[in-house]
């Protein structure tokens, strides 16, 4: 799974850093930074540990080249998150991809998700990942030239969930759309482990604070 280390061989015309690091090395470095500093990810790692699925970087993450422009994926059959080293553009993108895939891993850890046999389960996890990872933040949608304000977030979540489903399942758009529609109400409102939609790092930090405080919280209500 792990690609053998190679000496840096940059592609011409991609800048100084590119000529010193391979895609794999860049991926590993960015992943390390995400795991150590990103508040979304730190909360997810904490929550997963609490659920009995402690995450080990070498076991549960793999930087690989991928086809198309997929950024990453969660392989439930091997309990591994794949990061597409040829498609992850920068640190912010890495943060978002890791958050997105960890949400799938978290769902796999805490629930009986029939990833391969029930498209509604897949749809639910994709709705949650699009909703909670920052995929559908106002800024990201503007960058994609999707303009809309009032309740646009929900439109984005639906659309991206459908796209994600179609990327991994050989089904029609109508079937994917129907699955998303059926589960949307429940899954859009399931904010575990954040307890809220984390719109930015401040919200994610507050969410982590609340998670760490949960014993006091539940014993005093």
């Amino acid at each position: 799974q792990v690609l053998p280390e190679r000496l840096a061989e940059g592609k011409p015309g991609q800048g100084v850093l590119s000529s010193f690091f391979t895609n794999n090395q860049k991926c590993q470095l960015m992943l390390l930074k995400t795991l150590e500093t990103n508040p979304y990810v730190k909360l997810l790692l904490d929550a997963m540990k609490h659920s009995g699925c402690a995450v080990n970087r070498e076991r549960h993450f793999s930087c690989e080249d991928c086809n198309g422009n997929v950024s990453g994926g969660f392989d439930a059959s091997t309990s591994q998150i794949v990061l597409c080293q040829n498609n992850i553009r920068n640190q912010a993108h890495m943060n978002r991809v890791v958050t997105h895939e960890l949400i799938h891993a978290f769902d796999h850890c805490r629930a009986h998700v029939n990833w391969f046999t029930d498209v509604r389960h897949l749809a639910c996890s994709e709705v949650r990942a699009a909703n909670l990872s920052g995929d559908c933040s106002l800024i990201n949608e503007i960058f994609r030239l999707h303009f809309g304000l009032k309740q646009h977030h929900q439109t984005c979540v639906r659309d991206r969930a459908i796209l994600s489903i179609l990327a991994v399942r050989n089904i029609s758009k109508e079937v994917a759309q129907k699955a998303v529609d059926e589960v949307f109400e429940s899954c859009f409102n399931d904010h575990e482990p954040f307890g809220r939609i984390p719109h930015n790092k401040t919200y994610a930090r507050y969410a982590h604070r609340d998670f760490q405080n949960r014993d006091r919280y539940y014993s005093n209500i």
Partner: protein
Amino acid sequence: MADGGGWRPPRPCEVYRAEWKLCRSARHFLHHYYVHGERPACEQWRRDLASCREWEERRSAEAQRSLCESERARVQATRKHALVWALRQSPPADWHLPLPQEEKQQ
């Protein structure tokens, strides 16, 4: 709910204040409108902050009751919708197992 001995507010009072301030910020208004298509409601955080402070200062039973009720309502709101899947009693058995290739190499 733990009555009497040993009860304290579910969150520190500073947290109620931080949540209230965040709720009332312009950025939160924008985020909330973007998600829900309406303005956020922040009054309950203010009430909870007041209750928390009242408990801290005067150990008011009414403040305790009000806080508990408010937080329970928040918890209830998150449990409104039935889950699509069944929750596990224990984590997946193969989460920590070595990868298939590694097994073969061993």
